[in-house]
């Protein structure tokens, strides 16, 4: 049902930018999301990390909002769920920090470090990167939503 609405708005020529922009944006959004997740997950091996990857994911959603219409992006990830993801990322980071308190001190790297240069290594660092990535991506997308739609919503009493 929700997918049908998205398909319908996506193929509607009256909203959003032109067909050329939409066709390119479809490919670009997928690549940007993939690159953002790569930057987050490999943050302990290659340059990048949670913040940079999170901003890339936020830019992918912003491109979706600019190329298609505001409705498509809000159907994919609404402002409610953006703020929920923001809170969940922050909560996950703090919970990881407090688990370390049980093993020694705050933010203790309690997981086995593993072999260097492997994907699963470095203990809590990849987990923290994922938490920060979700948090920053959702937060910056929420800021863009806030700047974009909040001035246009009016309550029924005011209308």
């Amino acid at each position, binding site marked *: 049902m929700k997918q049908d609405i998205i398909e319908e708005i996506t193929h509607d020529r009256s909203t959003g930018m032109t067909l050329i922009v939409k066709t390119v944006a479809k490919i670009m959004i997928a690549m940007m999301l993939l690159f953002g997740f790569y930057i987050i997950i490999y*943050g*302990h091996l290659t340059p990048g*990390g949670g*913040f940079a990857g999170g*901003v890339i994911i936020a*830019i992918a959603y912003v491109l979706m909002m600019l190329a298609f219409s505001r409705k498509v992006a809000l159907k994919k990830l609404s402002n409610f769920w953006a703020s929920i993801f923001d809170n969940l990322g922050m909560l996950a980071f703090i919970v990881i920090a407090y688990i370390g308190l049980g093993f020694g001190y705050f933010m203790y790297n309690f997981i086995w470090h593993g072999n260097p240069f492997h994907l699963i290594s470095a203990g809590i660092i990849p987990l923290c990167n994922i938490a920060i990535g979700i948090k*920053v991506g959702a937060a910056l997308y929420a800021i863009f939503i806030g700047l974009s739609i909040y001035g246009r919503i*009016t309550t029924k009493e005011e209308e």
Partner: protein
Amino acid sequence: MLLFDIILIFMIIGTIIAVETKNMLSAVVAVGAVGFGVSLLFLYLRAPDIAITQVIVEVLSLIILIRVATHVDNVAIERRIDNFANMTGLIFIGLFIAFCIWAFTDVIPFANPLMRVSQHYLDAGLRETGAANIVAAVILDYRAYDTLGEAVVIFTSILGAFVILRSKGKKKLSEEDDITVGILEDA
């Protein structure tokens, strides 16, 4: 260091254009050019993590600024010439440059840090944390508390933005205000 100087001069020229131009959109474009110059400098100083972050944040802020700038009228601010203000500004710029020259003669040379703890991070970072990226090892293991503080700062700022930007208030328009906030009017 020739490339470094060229990028620095390019950034200074871009800043002057951004301040002095009358068109809002070209000012935003000039600011973007300065931002990408900053990321090139970071890349030149071998800090790819910060360079990636700078490029991406610059892109996002440029999108927001351009969307704002295309909706705002181009109003050139009428400027009157004030000799006293100009003279004061020149004197303080001169003092600033003089103190800069005096301060930068004593600055420690590049890549020779005063703090010995950074050498420990470089030597033992891979063994103690297991992270191949030394920047991730520092910001999420040795200095994780700082990163937590930064995350809290972003979280709080976004909370504030959400509170200010919402137009759907909790109070109905017909209700009376019982608390007076803001600038109080004098009689």
